[in-house]
């Protein structure tokens, strides 16, 4: 689960930076901004799900 997740997020990051470069050359800065926000949102959803898993594990292990 873990290594593939890191590769996925890194892949998203690299893809978005490449698309941003392409979009800025095509003089579409606003679309580049929207693309960056979309990428951050996708990664945030993964992060929030992972934080939820961590907190549930902590709750069970430490008997909160």
């Amino acid at each position: 689960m873990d290594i593939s997740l890191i590769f996925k997020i890194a892949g998203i990051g690299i893809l978005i930076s490449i698309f941003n470069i392409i979009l800025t050359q095509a003089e579409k800065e606003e679309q580049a901004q929207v693309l960056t926000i979309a990428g951050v949102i996708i990664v945030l959803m993964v992060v929030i799900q992972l934080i939820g898993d961590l907190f549930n594990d902590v709750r069970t292990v430490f008997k909160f």
Partner: protein
Amino acid sequence: MVILQIVGIAILAGILIIVIKQEKPELAFLLSLITGLIILILVLDQVGVVIDLLNQLAEKAEIDLIYFNTIIKIIGIAYIGEFGAEITRDSGETALASKIEMAAKIIIMILAIPIMLSLIETIIKLIP
């Protein structure tokens, strides 16, 4: 061994973060956050094994479990508080990080009050 897995993940993620950092610092921060979460989840299983062992020992020694449970809760609070503080410090918000640490200390202090009270009572009983 778990430690090999953890070190491998950390080094790998460090390299990927450097790659992403120039273009997208926010994604680099999210990647470091995710790596921290993964490593914490991996380590949590080991901590669970230790806590179960301590539980059995506490039952054998007939220590009443109330204090033992609060100690485990305190460890959990420290565990998560330290993680949150380091992540916010990593993102550059040192002020927020110190606030989290202060809050964690206060919560631990509140949890530790019953233990202190019972300790003081036993001491008073000992004094003739």
